């Protein structure tokens, strides 16, 4: 039985490989430019040691809009996202080249402190990761370390409005002093979003924010993202094409470290120009 199954699998692999090799990865197709770009990335390359994870990617993040980064596992979309607030700085072997600007300001400039950058470009992670502290402390932490507040009343205000924006306030208002880790997965993720917006960033990066959540919690997060784009520029990495279609205005399709296609979300999902994009969004592989 084993032999038969593996033979069958090999056959599948062969077809995939064949179909991939037929399609050449050359220039990015579609439109990478935005009329009103909050962040612009030009010719970005990222290397982990000898391995190249990102290969010459250029794109814009449109202001107050949601840009979805999609693509199969290991295509570099999370790596790319983490370059946007210099989270990759913490990895010793990671080397980054190219131009990254936020409001026409080079974010990799020597004069720019990554701490300042991260206050302007917040991040929400794949797995909800609240601090093992109270709900209040979780939200208050960012405002406190950046010295955004002068007294307790202001801090209370920030905590309340952030939790409200994240759609969590009504659920937790009576137990702000309970540990944040005691919330449900979806609530934890919204707590992490509240924590991020408490610092009032300009850009929010979301690395598969709903991948660890059930459909109902996911729906709430997606609704939230839609509301948040009024005030923030959002880049979201997602594995779910439906999610990308629902929440984003722009979609970038990554493949093996390259940006294959980028454009308006409705165009990408209805009339993909590149064969690889088409294969991916129709579920042929990925």
């Amino acid at each position: 039985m084993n032999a038969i199954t593996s033979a069958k699998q090999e056959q599948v692999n062969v077809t995939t490989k064949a179909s991939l090799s037929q399609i050449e990865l050359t220039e990015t197709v579609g439109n990478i430019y935005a009329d009103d770009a909050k962040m612009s990335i030009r010719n970005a390359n990222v290397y982990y040691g000898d391995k190249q994870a990102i290969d010459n990617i250029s794109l814009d993040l449109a202001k107050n809009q949601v840009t979805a980064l999609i693509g199969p596992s290991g295509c570099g979309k999370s790596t790319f996202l983490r370059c946007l607030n210099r989270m990759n700085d913490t990895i010793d072997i990671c080397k980054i080249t190219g131009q990254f600007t936020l409001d026409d300001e080079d974010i990799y400039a020597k004069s720019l402190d990554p701490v300042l950058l991260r206050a302007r470009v917040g991040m929400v992670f794949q797995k909800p990761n609240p601090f093992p502290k109270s709900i209040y402390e979780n939200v208050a932490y960012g405002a406190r370390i950046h010295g955004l507040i002068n007294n307790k009343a202001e801090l209370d205000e920030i905590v309340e409005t952030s939790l409200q924006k994240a759609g969590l306030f009504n659920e937790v208002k009576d137990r702000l002093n309970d540990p944040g880790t005691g919330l449900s997965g979806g609530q934890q993720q919204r707590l992490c979003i509240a924590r991020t917006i408490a610092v009032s960033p300009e850009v929010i990066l979301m690395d598969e924010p709903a991948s660890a959540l059930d459909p109902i919690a996911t729906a709430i997060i997606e609704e939230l993202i839609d509301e948040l784009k009024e005030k923030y520029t959002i880049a979201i990495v997602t594995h779910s094409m439906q999610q990308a279609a629902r929440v984003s205005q722009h979609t970038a399709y990554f493949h093996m470290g390259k940006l294959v296609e980028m454009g308006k979300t409705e165009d990408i999902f209805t009339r993909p120009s590149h064969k690889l994009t088409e294969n991916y969004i129709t579920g042929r592989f990925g």
Partner: protein
Amino acid sequence: MTKISKNSTVDSTNTNSALSTTEKVSLSLKKRHRKEKRFKRIGLFSVLFGFLLVVTLIGDITSKALPAFHQHWVKLEVNYQASWLNIDESTAQSLSAKQMKTANYRNVLKKSLYQMFPEVSGRKDKRQLAKLFSSNAEFTLKDNLIAAPLLFDKQTQIWVRLDDDVDSYLKEEFPLGEAGLRISQKQAQWVAQLIASERIESRFNFSFFTASDSREPELAGIKGALMGTILTMFVTLLLSFPLGVAGALYLEEFAPKNRFTDFIEININNLAAVPSIVFGLLGLAVIINLFGLPRSAPLVGGIVLTLMTLPTIIIASRAAIKAVPPSIREAALGLGASKMQVTFSHVLPQAMPGIITGAIIGVAQALGETAPLLMIGMVAFIVDVPTSIVDSATVLPVQIFLWADSPERAFLAKTSAAILVLLSLLMVINLSATMLRSKFEKK
């Protein structure tokens, strides 16, 4: 695909014997359960064995230590006669403090004893009689008179300690003439007389906890060594905890990973394996001889033990820091926390329970350490209770070592009692560590 797998299932059932999967599994299941049971039994046995060892150890030490906690006192008829005290009777009305201090109490004691035992004659017998009582007895008489000067020139009853040999004789009830017993037939008779006249009483031995070391077992106490231990541990913890945690945090969170830090890591591990006496030699050569710090002092002992404890704390702290989930670090970094803020408000509190455990293991090791302290002179015979970290001191394990080496029989019980005190101290430290740990874990 479905078709293929169906076929192959049929294949596999055909090629094997008539046994179904359930039957095969249930066959092997028996064997698996047997294995599990056997392992459980071995585990239970080893736990019980360890428990038994501990119970035996503690039971043995406790039974040996018990005699040290009580002591026999004897009620003497003492006559503070002016002539015996060697005080001029004419000045008796206005007794000065100096006169009372310098009076001949030894004579009073002797004369009072001869009065109590009129049948004793001859120098040898008289000396034997005097030896029944602690050498401290004359000072008891002195203190008594100074506290109550009205007793001058009067007869009174005073409780004094018996000598340790008599004390041991009474506690252990050896038959007379037993080898190694340092009490003669005649002395035993006098003791019997004292018992008959209900002059001997067993009391709780408070002085074991309030006195310092002494050559006389009936006077020797643990307080000096206990204070020395506390002061030494204070210095050790004060130095090794912040240094160890800072070192671990630097190596884990800040230091670049390169050959140099690898080299440091290897050497920290090596340091943990260095025999402790080597640290003692280092302390002697560098800290005492080069830097000129005082010999026998808890300060030097603490520094030497810090060298020993530091690698333990660093290794344990690094493990605890490594175990902090990276997602917490990323979350804080993503909010714009600086490295320092991430480390001190998130990593350190999370790693604290593990760090405390490591520190306690290190301190517990240091608590029982004798060898390095011998090298820096903490083995000296010290009668005063140390009050500061530069006073001469000794520590509990060294005290145990010293007492175990003493020939007097009564020191056997003292040694065991000191071991009990050391073990209790260890338990107190472990208990407080557990409490601290759970406090940090709740946060």
